């Protein structure tokens, strides 16, 4: 790399560092300064993209073992269903559970399905909840779907501004059992996404009667006693096929259809594994880990300077850049950090040092051979070192890949903590190749002056 190329890359590097630091810094910091309690806040970046205003204020996401919460693996009993029904049923259960958690007001919950050995599973993750027993008992129940017609109580003088109360709806005998299926599809003629519902013979009969009675009035669909949708009945429907239109977007429609299916094909779920962590336990663990990490990094940096002198400082800079960029990446993707994940990150810092050491040892050898010219020296050193760095890192990368299982292969683990560790390790290796090789080289090309050869 020649001087002018290095200069150009240096500017890129500085930009990356500045952006990285900005993203990586914590959003608020509270401390006592000169006896007064102060609070520094990082401004959130605000910008407009394609006419939509976006607020950019990423935070670090922490996993269950740090924030506390619950993680359950449920198995759905789909034995009695046909293949095509199975998929609909599982999506339905997933949707219903997600809805229930939503009702709890928990933002970062996740419900993921997986199939192992013909067994259909749901992995539910509810962070930040301390009353996990309650949350879990709510999730495990089978979905209940029913249709209710509008019969406002006679003293509707107390009606809400929109005129319709939930309590105005009265149960009918039409339930999820009578619904055969629900599908969301795009209707060309209207130019909208429509939900198509189909009832079985018994349901068709009931539905015909109810719609006859309810023309011009809303007919509400309730799931788990919670109103899902209340479309207005336009005319009596006697063939058991109904449509719901309402300017749905694709995801809304899919969600609605899946929920309806959950009611139509109620599938019972059984928990096969469960993990709950009290928030306090996690908070303490993170603090000690954090402290240990800072001390560890400090010691490693000290070591590098002691052993390699001036060159060590370049290594320190690139290591710090590595740490900053890693944190920024964790915030951007975002990656949920677990305790082992943080440990993996700290470990990768130790390994990042390795790259620098390999280069410096090479450099020492080349200097002894007497190159004289800085650029030639650096290019020889970095070039030769890269071979072994590449080989060595591939081995670790392969192992991390297996553990992280990003493609979700069912014959490997899908477990949380292990994956967290592997993902941070993998990211660490890739980032490390960048900072260790490129960043250090740029810095050294611009600022390093080898001592006179006095071997």
């Amino acid at each position: 790399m020649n001087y002018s190329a290095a200069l150009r890359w240096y500017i890129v590097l500085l930009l990356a560092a500045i952006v990285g630091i900005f993203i990586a810094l914590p959003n608020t910091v509270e401390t006592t300064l000169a006896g007064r309690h102060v609070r520094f806040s990082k401004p959130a970046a605000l910008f407009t993209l394609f006419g939509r205003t976006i607020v950019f204020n990423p935070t670090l996401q922490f996993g269950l073992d740090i924030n506390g919460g619950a993680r359950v693996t449920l198995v759905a009993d789909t034995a009695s269903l046909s293949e095509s029904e199975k998929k609909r049923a599982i999506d339905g259960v997933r949707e219903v559970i997600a809805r229930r958690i939503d009702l709890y007001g928990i933002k970062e919950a996740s419900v993921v399905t997986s199939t192992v050995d013909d067994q259909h599973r749901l992995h539910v993750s509810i962070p930040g909840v301390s009353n996990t027993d309650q949350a879990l008992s709510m999730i495990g129940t089978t979905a209940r779907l029913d249709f209710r017609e509008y019969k406002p109580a006679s003293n509707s003088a107390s009606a809400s501004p929109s005129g319709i109360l939930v309590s105005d709806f009265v149960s009918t005998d039409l339930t999820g059992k009578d619904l055969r299926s629900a599908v969301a599809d795009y209707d060309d003629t209207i130019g909208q996404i429509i939900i198509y519902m189909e009832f079985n013979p018994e349901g068709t009969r009931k539905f015909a009667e109810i719609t006859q009675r309810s023309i011009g009035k809303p007919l509400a669909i309730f799931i788990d006693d919670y109103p899902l949708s209340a479309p207005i009945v336009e005319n009596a429907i006697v063939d058991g096929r109904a449509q719901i239109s309402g300017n749905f977007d694709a995801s809304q429609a899919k969600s609605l259809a899946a929920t309806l299916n959950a009611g139509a094909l109620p599938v019972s779920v059984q928990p096969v594994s469960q993990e709950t962590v009290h928030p306090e336990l996690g908070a303490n663990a993170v603090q000690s880990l954090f402290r240990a990490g800072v001390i560890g990094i400090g010691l490693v940096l000290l070591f590098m300077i002691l052993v390699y002198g001036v060159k060590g400082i370049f290594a320190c800079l690139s290591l710090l850049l590595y740490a900053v960029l890693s944190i920024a990446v964790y915030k951007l993707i975002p990656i949920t950090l677990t305790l082992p994940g943080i440990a993996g990150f700290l470990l990768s810092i130790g390994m990042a040092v390795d790259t620098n050491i390999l280069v410096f040892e090479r450099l020492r050898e080349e200097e002894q051979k007497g190159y004289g010219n800085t650029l030639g020296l650096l290019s020889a050193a970095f070039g030769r070192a890269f071979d072994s760095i590449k080989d060595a890192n591939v081995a670790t990368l392969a192992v991390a890949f297996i553990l992280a299982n990003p493609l979700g292969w069912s014959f490997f683990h899908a477990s949380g903590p292990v994956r967290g560790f592997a993902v941070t390790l993998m990211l660490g290796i890739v980032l490390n190749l960048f900072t260790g090789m490129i960043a250090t080289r740029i810095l050294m090309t611009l600022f390093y002056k080898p001592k006179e050869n006095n071997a």
Partner: protein
Amino acid sequence: MPKKNTNGPFPIISKYAGVYLFLSFLLIFLSCLSIYLFGLRLSIEFTGGTIWEFSANPPEKTTITRQKLQEIGVPTDVIVSMQQLDERTLRLRMHPIDTTQKQEIKATLEQAFGTITDQRFETVGPSLGNEHFRKTLLSLGVGAVLITLYLASRFHSIMLAGSALLAAIHDGLILVGVWAVVGHLFSVEVDVLFLTALLTILSFSVHDTIVVYDRIRERQKKNGWSISSQLVDQAVLDTLVRSLRNSIAILIMLLTLFLIAGERIAWFMFALLIGTIAGTYSSTFVALPLVVAWMRIKQKRAKK
């Protein structure tokens, strides 16, 4: 004064290969022995079961024993073992129970001991445990195969790849052996995290070995692709310092983490620590003696 070695580099590996290999066999033997004697404590992630940690603040200080639990009406047959973690916290290891059963037991406990705060509750059904076990073995197997294939292709030599793999397995065995001892003394379990450490150590060991191999390959290029004991010796002498420095850097980080970070991570770090030390040692003093031995056997066969 006459120079010591006029004929070549100090035969650090070639002369003492036998010693190193003997030492390694001894270590492996000891590890296997300890595994046989002490067994491995498998966590519930592999056996299935429940772990329930809770803290209580009973009005009068009572030690909670199995008998006491029976007295207040807790079904103690589901309890496999009890461990008092600190003054207020108890850890129960049980057969798998579900949330309803747990709540029942909790209610009974609260009647006797006042409010109970759950710290941790983990249940794994038995079939899931089995599956974890299978998947982990598979991960280990595939990892080992991938690494060997990669090595063989990069260094054009099954001998080098095989030795590297054997060195890594050697490290793994030692780690498991140590865990058997530690498990016996400190009740440390073999859980999924430990297996993560094992897999990571596999890659560490190979990582370290590769750097020495790289040096060998470089000298091979100058020597017309032949490999000799002298070549190996020189390569080791060249890279010894670098290898040590690298390991020290990682060890500093691991040691700090082990000593200062909390209990949950400590044992994981300890496993990585043992593994890193073993990995550094094995790269030079296990993989290479194996290579030398292999070469000698090939030579003898060729002569016949």
